[in-house]
Each structure stands twice: as structure tokens, then as C-alpha cells.
């Protein structure tokens, strides 16, 4: 429980601390420092266990389904990192109290700082890789928020975004890597993973997993070529730079390598990937640091270089190198954090960080200068300071690498060279800032010592540097041993923490680096000139340029593809579809099935020619809607005739009556549209579209041909065979409607009725303004109802009613039926509307339109229910034949009653829909009194 609590404490603090923001900076600093102090106290009792080589693992179940558990682990390595995080954290909290100005949002700052502390503790204390990953991503996010703390600065926002994009992306790679490890091992618990080292290394997935994990580690720890984000993260307030970007967060990648060292290290692949990355980072960081005029920039690049050094040590793969790496983590954290704080003090007191301006500060702030000089000396690797010890170990290890042939010289040479640069930039830090003449044009003059308490954190850290440097065994020995034991997960080889190991090659390398470094510094102007010959690479600019290039591509892509033009979208959709189906369709070819092609006769040919011609005409004349509509109606007519030609008179009749109603509906809509549309498409476009249409049509033709020439077996045979004996009618369509699928029909007429009611209701209050003139500007005819039409239409009504009655009655056996009869009646009545106007027709209508709908539905339902009375299921039909005096033998089916219901509903609904639309037209007519 303790470990979970240790991680939880800072999170609690992050919630509580902002409450103290009103009480002033001191109050909130005290409140914020409580969680880490309590956490330190909570960790203390475990020290004895750990010193004896014990490991503390506490597991709580969280999400067993995905293998994620709240399990925490305390061993030497995690203790070392936890101590760094907590102790430096407390110091940073104290420092930030004086660094932040009164008006700044201290509540947010401390809250984020504690949030970060908790996440970072989470990383180092997790014993479950997934849990670690979660905290890993959290640190990236919090780091983003902290870098952009001064979010009014554009540079800060950009730097923050870049940092998050790089580290967050690395985190995702790590996610994949961790999942892969879990896949290999079968568990995400660290104990299992470390125990399965051999399985992992033997697995065929090892290279992938290793690459992904290392990608995560390298991005987080700013290794080449991902190092560029770190210098730009320096836009953060200095306490953040000191804490996140030198002491802790950038060490997370290092920590990950140390944590998984037993599981992943020791292979050739590991060696080459890690050590060469480390080497490149070490050199590039050290070289660049020398030429930075910004104080924090110098420190940032130096941090990159030192992180490369640690990585290189891990990459070497020997146990002693790993120990040296862990040791250097401690040393770097102490001296670099103190240097950052010193830089922050200088910035705070002078108002600038440009080393060309801040000179000779020794006279103004000797105390700070002393502290900074000791820390910088440690960075340079001066004896009696901690930096020297680990650097010596590093030099020694670089000599022990057994690379073949001439390559054996590479590591020591690189190490020495980096050492030279390190000495040179450290010397520059000391000499340029504190000596080297007088300050130039300082924004704040004269500078003086910072508040007393602001220096305390620096003093403590510098004291630690000296203590470790002089009494290494006493100051750090047991902790380092415990950490080394945990890192290696096995026996620790003998190593000695002494100040000098005697005069040997590593010491010589140190001296050489020292001497050459100072020489380089004295000749710095030449190097600066040399460096100035190359174009300065601003990584942020490169990154931003890369982003904007991508953006530019995307923009061009969008301009070409997604310009908002519907025509283009349709074109692209067609092309994309073609691309998906091109393979199967081309392999299909000209495929005629087993039925062969039926013979061509004259009527069919003429009919289809008319059909094709009218369809083409409708497409060609679509801008003149009336003509297009007329041609379209011819198409409909031809389709009806085609049905008739292929012996489906019932279908033909249905099609015909539906066609009439549809055209009337379209005509009503036409009224509101301009009668003519200008031609807008260019010639090229029309040809292009025609070609596309031709291609699509040919494909359709091929497939239709292939399909129609195959034998087809469908349910229609069943209906054809059973319609007489089962439904008592030979008109299959009608029998299907009222008998076989009677239930469906009942549902359908209900839908029709509801739809009609809905349209009626919705259009009831709609008001449309009709155009006063037609498209060419001619006013509408005032003679709304031509006399001839009026006179002809009137006798037509009874005639049509008779026809529909006839069609209705014969419907069960011959083409016809309630549905068609209903449509015919509706058309006849609509004709009255058209010819004589709404008012006239309504006055003569003995009922309103809702009545037939309701009645029809009632009759249909009642017919269905009636079969219950005879003990049959719903809608069972029966039929018998009776002899009528005039008509002759007549078949009376119970379905007939049902058909009446259909008839009534169709009449009512159709009329209601058309009349509602027509009423709109009427109401908006220019002269309401015209009829």
C-alpha cells in the first residue's frame, strides 16, 4: 500500500496545492513541499530491506482483462530515481517560490509540478509495464503543459507542441513495443518480463520489440536524431527546465533502458543500436553546446550530450558500464540541476541569458558565482567532484570495448573528444559569465545576489557534488550498489569508488581532455568563426518546416480532391469504385450464359429504340424541365409496354397508373422551379461526363447480359403455381397483394395512410411563394381553368369510375385489382381538380379525404379479424363462386373485401397527397380569385 500511496501523494497535492494560491507564494510552496517530504518519510523504512538486496512488490488488481494491474515495485534502481525525483523536487519547489513573480499563476504551476512529480514517480515505481506506460504518457502531457506555462509566448507554445509530438509519438511506439513484449512473455508484470529474458531474446519478434521500446526511450531521453525537442523545451520557466529537462523526465528513457536491461540487453542488436545512438548524441550535443550563446541553450545541449553518454554506457553491454551509467545519472542530475538553477538566478537578476552580454558577474554575485563554478567544474570533470568519477569510469569502459580492428579506437577517441568539448563549454560557462570584462547593456543593472533562500537549493546540490566527489563510498556507495544490483538483476561485479585509481590510461584521457578543452576555449574565436561558416540549423525551424511541408501537401491534396464540388466528388467516387472492382470486372469479359441471346423482333427493337432515345433526350434536355418531363413520361410508358410485351399485363397496368400519378406530382413541383436552367458545364466537362457514363453503362451492359442469360429460379414460380388453388385468382399480382402477402399489404396501406396524413399535416401551414412569372419572364395565364379541358373532364369522371369498378371486380383473375382501381379513381378525381380548381371540386365532394382512408383501413382490418370468427388465423382467405345474372360466373373471395379496403385507402391517400401539394400551388397563386 505504501508505494501506491507514495505515487498518489503528489497527485493529491496537485489538487490541494492550488487552494493555497490565494495565501501567497510561501504558503503554496510549503503546501506543495509536504507531499514529497511525506513520501520520502514513507520510503525511509524500506531502506534496510533494499540495502540487503530485497525487492518490494505490491500488487493491486485493476484491469485484469488487459493485463493492467496497479503493481508497484521498489528496488535499488527505483529507489535511486525516486530519491532524485523527490529530493530535487523539494528543492525545485523552494527555488520556484522565489523564481516566480507574484502576479503569475502560481497555483497552476505548483499543481502541474506536483502532477509531474506523481507521474514520474509512477514511472519509476511501476512494476507493470502498461502502468508504466500510462505514467509515461502523463509525463509527456504534463511536460507539454509546463513548457507552455507562459502560453502567451508563441515560441513556448511551439516548443511545447514539438516536445509533445516527439515524446508522445515515442510513447506510442513504446506502447506497441510493450504490447509486443507482453505478447512474447504472456504478462506485463516486470518480474515475469525480466525472468523471461532468454525467451524474449530468442523470439523472432525481438528486433521489432527492441526497436519500438528503444524508440520510446530515445525520444524521451532526447537521443539523436530526436534530440532537437529538448533545447526548444527551454522556453519553459527555469525551475521546469532544471527539474524536467535535466534531472528527471529526460532520464525516463534512461530509466527504461536500465529497467529492461536484463531483459533486452546483451545482444549484438542492442549493442549497435544503443551505443551508436549514444555516441552520436554525445558528440553532437557536446559540439553544439559550445556555440550556444544562450545560457540555457548551452546547458540544454550539454544535457543532450550527457544523456548520450549514459546511453552509450548502457549500450556497451558490460556490467561495469551499466554501473557507471547509473552513477552518472546521479551525478548529472545533481550538477545539471544546480547549473540550471544558477542560470535561472542569473536570468532573474540580469534580465537576459545571452552570454555575450552577461560578463564579469563575479563582482556582483560572488556567492552564486562560486556555486555555479563548482557545478560547472563538475560538469567538465574536474577531480574531487562527482562528474570526474563517473567520467573516469566512462573512459575506462570505452577502452574495454572489444570492437574489431580499427573500430576499437572509435569509442575512446569519441569519449575524449566529447570530453574536450565538455571542458571547453564548461570553461565558457564559467569564464564568459563571471569574468571576461564588464557586462554589456544589461536590462537590469546592477545585478545583485538573489534572495537568501533561492540559493539554498543550489547550495545543497553543489554540496552533494562535492561530497560524492570526495567521499564517494560514504556518500553514495550503498545506494549505488543497491541500484546496480537492481539494474543488473544479478551479481554485481567488483568495482571501486575511489577518487583516483592510480595513474592509468583513463586518467591520461581526462588530462588530455582537460588540457585540450582549455586550449579550445582560449582559441574559441577561431572555432566560432569556423562554426559560423556553416548555416546554423535551427531544429525548430526544420521541424516546423517539415510540418508546414506536410500541411502544404495536404492543402494541395485537398485543393485537387476536395474542393467542395459535388460533380468532382461523384467523379472520384466512380473512379474509386472502378479501382476497387477493376480486377473482377475485367476478368468477367463478354460473358453470355447458358440461355443464350433471345431472338430480336421488330416491336421489341422499336420499343427499346424509343426507350433509349427518350432516356437520352431526357438527359440532354434536362435544362428545360417540361420537355424533360414529357420525355421521361414516355420512358415510363415504354417500360409499361415492355411489361405488356413480356406477358405481364398486370405489372404493365400497375406501372401505368403509378406513372400517371408520379408525373402529376412532378408537374406540381415543376411550378416552383424555373422552367429553364442556363448551361454551366464546359464542353470538356460534358465530354468527360459522357465518356464516364458510357464506360459505366458498358460495364452495366456486360453484367446485365451475363446475368440475364443465366437460368434464374425465384419465388415467382411458387406464386404462379399456387395462385389459383391457394388464392382463387389467376392475377398473380393481385393474389399476392391481397392473399399471399395480405399481412404485408395491410401494413403497406397503413403506411400509405400515415404518410398521407403526415404530408397533409406538414403542408397544412407551409407557405411557398410562387414565382410571379415563368422562366422567360412571361406572366402566368390568368385563365386558370380552360373551358375545353373543364368540359371534357367532367364526363370523364363517371366513365373513369366505371372503369375502375370494372377493373376492381375483375382484378382477382384478370389484370386489375383494388390497388390499380384506386389509382385510376384518384387520377380521375385529380383531373377534376386540375380542370376545375380546388374549390369547385371540394364543394362537390360529398366527403373529406380523410374518410376513405380511415374507412379503407377499417375494412381491411375487419376482413382480417373476421377470419377469427371462423376459427382461422388472422387474414385467412376463403373463396367461392356465385352466378350473377348479367356478369355470369363470378368468383367471390373474402380477399375481395380486403381489396375494397385497399382501394379506398389508395384513393384517399393519393388524393390527399396530391391535393395537399396542389393546395400549396393554389394558395400562392398571384390572383387568388382566379378560379
Amino acid at each position, binding site marked *: 500500500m505504501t508505494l501506491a500511496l507514495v505515487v498518489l501523494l503528489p497527485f493529491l497535492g496537485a489538487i490541494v496545492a492550488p487552494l493555497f494560491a490565494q495565501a501567497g507564494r510561501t504558503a503554496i510552496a510549503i503546501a506543495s513541499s509536504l507531499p514529497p517530504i511525506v513520501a520520502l518519510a514513507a520510503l525511509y523504512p524500506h531502506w534496510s530491506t533494499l540495502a540487503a538486496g530485497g525487492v518490494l512488490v505490491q500488487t493491486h488488481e485493476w484491469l485484469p482483462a488487459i493485463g493492467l494491474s496497479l503493481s508497484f515495485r521498489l528496488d535499488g534502481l527505483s529507489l535511486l530515481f525516486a530519491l532524485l525525483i523527490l529530493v530535487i523536487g523539494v528543492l525545485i519547489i523552494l527555488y520556484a517560490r522565489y523564481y516566480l513573480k507574484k502576479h503569475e499563476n502560481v497555483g497552476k504551476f505548483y499543481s502541474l509540478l506536483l502532477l509531474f512529480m506523481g507521474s514520474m514517480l509512477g514511472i519509476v515505481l511501476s512494476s507493470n509495464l502498461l502502468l508504466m506506460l500510462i*505514467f509515461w504518457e502523463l509525463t509527456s502531457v504534463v511536460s507539454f503543459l509546463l513548457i507552455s506555462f507562459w502560453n502567451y509566448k508563441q515560441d513556448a507554445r511551439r516548443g511545447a507542441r514539438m516536445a509533445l509530438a516527439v515524446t508522445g509519438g515515442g510513447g506510442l511506439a513504446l506502447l506497441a513495443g510493450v504490447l509486443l513484449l507482453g505478447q512474447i512473455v504472456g504478462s506485463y508484470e516486470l518480474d515475469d518480463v525480466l525472468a523471461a529474458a532468454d525467451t524474449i531474446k530468442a523470439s523472432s519478434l525481438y528486433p521489432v520489440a527492441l526497436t519500438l521500446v528503444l524508440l520510446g526511450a530515445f525520444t524521451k531521453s532526447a537521443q539523436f536524431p530526436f534530440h532537437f525537442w529538448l533545447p526548444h523545451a527551454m522556453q519553459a520557466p527555469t525551475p521546469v527546465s532544471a527539474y524536467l529537462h535535466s534531472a528527471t523526465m529526460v532520464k525516463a528513457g534512461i530509466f527504461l533502458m536500465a529497467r529492461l536491461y536484463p531483459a533486452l540487453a546483451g545482444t549484438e542488436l542492442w549493442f549497435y543500436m544503443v551505443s551508436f545512438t549514444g555516441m552520436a548524441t554525445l558528440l553532437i550535443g557536446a559540439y553544439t553546446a559550445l556555440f550556444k550563446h544562450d545560457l540555457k541553450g548551452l546547458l540544454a545541449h550539454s544535457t543532450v550530450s550527457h544523456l548520450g553518454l549514459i546511453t552509450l554506457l548502457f549500450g556497451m553491454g558490460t556490467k561495469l558500464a551499466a554501473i557507471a551509467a547509473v552513477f552518472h545519472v546521479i551525478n548529472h542530475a545533481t550538477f545539471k540541476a544546480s547549473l540550471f538553477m544558477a542560470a535561472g538566478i542569473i536570468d532573474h537578476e540580469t534580465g537576459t541569458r545571452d552570454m555575450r552580454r552577461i560578463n564579469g558577474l563575479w563582482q556582483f554575485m560572488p556567492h552564486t558565482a562560486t556555486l555555479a563554478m563548482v557545478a560547472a567544474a563538475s560538469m567538465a570533470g574536474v577531480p574531487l567532484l562527482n562528474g570526474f568519477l563517473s567520467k573516469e569510469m566512462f573512459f575506462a569502459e570505452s577502452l574495454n570495448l572489444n570492437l574489431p580492428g580499427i573500430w576499437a579506437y572509435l569509442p575512446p577517441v569519441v569519449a575524449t573528444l566529447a570530453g574536450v568539448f565538455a571542458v571547453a563549454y564548461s570553461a565558457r560557462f564559467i569564464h564568459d559569465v563571471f569574468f571576461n570584462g564588464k557586462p554589456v547593456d544589461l536590462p537590469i543593472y546592477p545585478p545583485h545576489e538573489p534572495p537568501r533562500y533561492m540559493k539554498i537549493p543550489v547550495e545543497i546540490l553543489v554540496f552533494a557534488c562535492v561530497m560524492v566527489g570526495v567521499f564517494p563510498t560514504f556518500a553514495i556507495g550503498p545506494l549505488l550498489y543497491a541500484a546496480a544490483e537492481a539494474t543488473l538483476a544479478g551479481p554485481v561485479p567488483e568495482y571501486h569508488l575511489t577518487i583516483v585509481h592510480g595513474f592509468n590510461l583513463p586518467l591520461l584521457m581526462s588530462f588530455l581532455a582537460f588540457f585540450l578543452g582549455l586550449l579550445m576555449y582560449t582559441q574559441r574565436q577561431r572555432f566560432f568563426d569556423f562554426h559560423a561558416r556553416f548555416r546554423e540549423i535551427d531544429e525548430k525551424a526544420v521541424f516546423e518546416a517539415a510540418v508546414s511541408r506536410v500541411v502544404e501537401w495536404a492543402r494541395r491534396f485537398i485543393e485537387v480532391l476536395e474542393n467542395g464540388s459535388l460533380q468532382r466528388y461523384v467523379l472520384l467516387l466512380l473512379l474509386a469504385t472502378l479501382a476497387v472492382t477493376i480486377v473482377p470486372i475485367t476478368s468477367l469479359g463478354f460473358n453470355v450464359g447458358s440461355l443464350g441471346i433471345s431472338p430480336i423482333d421488330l416491336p421489341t427493337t422499336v420499343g427499346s429504340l424509343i426507350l433509349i432515345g427518350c432516356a437520352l433526350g431526357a438527359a440532354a434536355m434536362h435544362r428545360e424541365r417540361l420537355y424533360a418531363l414529357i420525355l421521361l413520361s414516355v420512358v415510363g410508358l415504354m417500360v409499361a409496354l415492355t411489361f405488356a410485351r413480356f406477358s405481364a399485363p398486370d405489372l404493365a397496368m400497375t406501372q401505368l397508373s403509378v406513372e400517371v400519378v408520379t408525373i402529376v406530382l412532378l408537374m406540381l413541383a415543376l411550378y416552383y422551379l424555373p422552367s429553364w436552367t442556363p448551361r454551366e458545364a464546359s464542353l470538356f466537362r460534358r465530354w468527360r461526363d459522357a465518356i464516364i457514363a458510357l464506360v459505366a453503362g458498358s460495364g452495366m451492359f456486360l453484367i446485365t447480359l451475363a446475368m440475364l442469360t443465366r437460368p434464374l429460379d425465384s419465388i415467382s414460380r411458387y406464386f404462379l403455381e399456387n395462385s389459383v388453388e391457394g388464392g382463387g385468382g389467376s392475377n398473380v399480382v393481385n393474389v399476392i397483394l391481397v392473399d399471399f402477402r395480405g399481412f404485408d399489404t395491410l401494413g403497406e396501406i397503413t403506411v400509405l395512410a400515415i404518410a398521407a*396524413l403526415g404530408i397533409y399535416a406538414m403542408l397544412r401551414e407551409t407557405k411557398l411563394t410562387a414565382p410571379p412569372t415563368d422562366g422567360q419572364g412571361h406572366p402566368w395565364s390568368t385563365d386558370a381553368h380552360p373551358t375545353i379541358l373543364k368540359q371534357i373532364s367532367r364526363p370523364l369522371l363517371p366513365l373513369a369510375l366505371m372503369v375502375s369498378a370494372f377493373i376492381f371486380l375483375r382484378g382477382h383473375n384478370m389484370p386489375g385489382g383494388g390497388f390499380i382501381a384506386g389509382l385510376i379513381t384518384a387520377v380521375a378525381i385529380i383531373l377534376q381538380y386540375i380542370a376545375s380548381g380546388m374549390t369547385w371540386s371540394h364543394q362537390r365532394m360529398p366527403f373529406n379525404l380523410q374518410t376513405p382512408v380511415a374507412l379503407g383501413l377499417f375494412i381491411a382490418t375487419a376482413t382480417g379479424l373476421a377470419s377469427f370468427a371462423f376459427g382461422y388465423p388472422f387474414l385467412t382467405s376463403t373463396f367461392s363462386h356465385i352466378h350473377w345474372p348479367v356478369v355470369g360466373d363470378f368468383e367471390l373471395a373474402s380477399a375481395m373485401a380486403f381489396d375494397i379496403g385497399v382501394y379506398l385507402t389508395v384513393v384517399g391517400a393519393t388524393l390527399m397527397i396530391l391535393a395537399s401539394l396542389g393546395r400549396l400551388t393554389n394558395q400562392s397563386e398571384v390572383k387568388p380569385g382566379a378560379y
Partner: protein
Amino acid sequence: MLTSAHMMALTPVILVCATAVTVMLGIAWRRQHAATALVSILGLNLALVSLYLVYSAGDVSTPLLVFDRLSMLGMVLVLASTLACLTMSHAYLEGYPGRKEEFYLLMLCAAAGGMVLVASQHLATLFFGLELLSMPLYGMLAYTYRDKRSLESGIKYLVLSAAATAFLLFGMALLYSQSGRLDIAGLLAGLESSGGGAWALAGAGLMLVGLGFKLSIVPFHLWTPDVYQGGPGPAATFLATASKAAVFIVLLRIVMVAPAFHVEWLHTVLGGLALLTMIVGNLLALIQTNLKRLLGYSSIAHFGYLLVALVVADGLAVETAGIYLITYLMTTLGAFGVVTLLSSPYSGEDASALHHYRGLFWRRPYLAAVLTVCLLSLAGIPFTAGFIGKFYIVALGVEAGRWWLVGGIIAGSVIGLYYYLRVMVTLYLVEPGMRGRDAPDNWGMKAGGVVVLGLALLVIAFGVYPTPVIDWMSVLTSPVH
């Protein structure tokens, strides 16, 4: 024969349809905005409750529809998304000067379509459901037709969707011509016996085009950003959530049972489309300055990730797809919800340009917080639902060894992180003198505000403790149908 078990299983769909009819007749009788919304919400809730009863009654299968666990999942997703959309519509339409009530009618019809779609195991119901889902959407998108963009988006969706539907139908016809069957299982069995060949492939490809269009998979995605931007907020939300979820589930069902879809060729096509979708979606989102468009592209990218489940298509894939869909829906509903709440059709175009959101935090801290949570979740940051979803998808890809897709997910997510962040940073910018679009003052009181707040909490809750949902999902998908 229609038995009572069948009726029972159909209850949720019937309830939604009945609600739609009630609403329609109610409108005919008397227009009352609040009452209409209330009736709709009541009906949907009843349907949700009845869904629980149906679920406990066990699987029911009819020739056309199947009520198994996958359909239950789909129906829950559709109903819940519709509920959220409806609630937001109420807030959105409150200030609309025109007719408000028909919007609910359309949405209820579309929801019914979605429910039929997820339960369909027959091409007829599949088509019917899809059309019933899409048709009302045309109306919904063009609902605020006085705004040119809304009208344009409606027409664009109508035309393109009709084209896609034609392909879908054609694909169905081809499959039918090979197998002589229309029920999905029989169809596939028929294909296997007849060998399928070019016809089946062409059919499957064309169906993929039709369904891929609805899911806005690259290169059939062109309509998405325009339509999202132009359509009224609730309609775009519905399109991005309920509609996509329903279509995805039916695609999942087809792919899971269909040997025609288990040809390597199609898997390669699907994998390629997935990769293309995630990369293109994310890249194009990068340059958007309009939040609705940005969310549109981001939804494209997310369906690219989801396609990975289809490519892998094994037992775990269904579970993964379910979890990812849930996280996606929660998050997208929340994000679109905020946009909707900030917009009102009364004051012209929706508030969707990024600069409307500058410094939102200082004016509407809760709304900004909700949006931040949703964006974090979309980016897949730990402790949000999105992380769980992303975790499952990456795990699935890793397990199946689809390295290209895993790489695509990672690359896409990195780009995603970048543009989500841009929006988040905008929310917290302090710039004096800026006065952006505001939600109505008492937004928190309104149902819509409560819904987005609840969604944000849900996103976090699911991110922290997803076990119940994961358990539910593994129960739902354990016997693969």
C-alpha cells in the same frame, strides 16, 4: 410464422417506430417542441429498457433479422447515440425560428433504420435498414435550409449517397446472381459451393464501396468534411455516431461470417484502405481551421483504426471493435455536443471556426473542460476512454502481426496528437478583446449540457475503470456467430 418470441424480440424496433408515428401524429395535431422532444426521449428510453428484456430472453433468429448479442450491442449503441443527439437537438433547435418538431421525427426514423440494419442477416433488411437510416439524414442535414451550407450539405449527401447505394445494390445483385440466395449466411454458403470467382469478388468489392461510403473510408470519404461542416450540429453528430456505428456493425457481421470476405485479395484491399484512411484522415485534419471539419477528418481517421479489426477478423476483433466503437461514440458525442451547444441555428452558421473557441475556457470553463477531455480521449491519452480503445486496437494489430497497420496507427496518432493539441491550446489562450460565440447562459441546466457533462465523466470513468464494459463486451462477443 410470427411467434410471440419474435414479437418480443422485435419490441425495441417496434417501440421506436411507434414513437416516430406518435411524434408525427402529434405534430399533425399540435406543434409543441418540448413535448415532442419528451415523447421522443421517452420512446427511446422505453426501447432501451425493452432491449434489456430482449437480451435476457436470449437469441432470436428470423429469416430477415437476427437478435443476437452483436445486434444487441449495435442497438444499444444506436439508441444511446440517438438519445444523446436528440437531447442536444432540443438545446440546438430551441432558438430555431422555423419548424422544430420534424427533426425528431426524422431522427427517430433514422434510429429505427439503424436498429434494423444492425440486426439484419438478409440483404433485403440490410438494404432497407441502410436506406431508412440514410433517407431521414438528407432531411436532417438540410433542415436549417435557409442556411446555404446546410442545404448544400443535404444535397451533397443525397446525391453521393444515392450513387454509393447504387453500387451497394449492384454488389448485392452480383452476389445474388452467383448464389441465388439473399440471406447472408446462405449467400455465403452458396458462394462457397459455386466457387464465387470474379463475380463474387466484384460483388463483395461493390458492397464494400457502398458501406465504405457510409463509413467515410478513404477514398470514399470526400463528402464527410463538407457535410459535417454544413449540416446542423445534431445532424452531423448523428451522422458521425449512430449512423456510422450501425453501418460498421453490419459490415463487421458480414466480414465475420462471410468466406467471400476471407479472400486474401479483399484483406489486402481492406488493409490498404485502413492504412490510407488513417493516414489521409489525420493528415488532412492537420490543416483544418474549422472544428467541425477537423472532427470530420478525425472521425475518418478513427474508422481507419477500426478497420484494423475487420482486417484481422478473428474472435478478439469483435471485442476490440466493440470497445473501440464505444469509446469513439462517447468521445465524439461529447465533442460534437459542445460544438452543438455553442451553436444555434438562430444566429447563422454553426460556431465551428477554430477562432470561435479562442479562450473558451475563460468564458465557459466547464464546456472547455468537456471539450478538452474529449480531445484528449480522441488523441488516446491515458485515463480517458480513447486510450483503452487505442490500446485494444494496437494490441490486436500486434497480435495479428499486421506491422504496417500498427505503424500506421502510431504515425496517425502522432499526427493526431498534434492537431488535437492545437485545438486544446486554443481553448486556453488568453487574448484580450476576444469575444467568441457563447452558449446560452444556463446551458448547464439544460438537458444538452447535462448530457455532454455526463459524457465527459463517462469518458474519464471508462478510461480509469473500463472493466465493466470490457466484461460486457467479452460476454457479448464470446460465442462468435
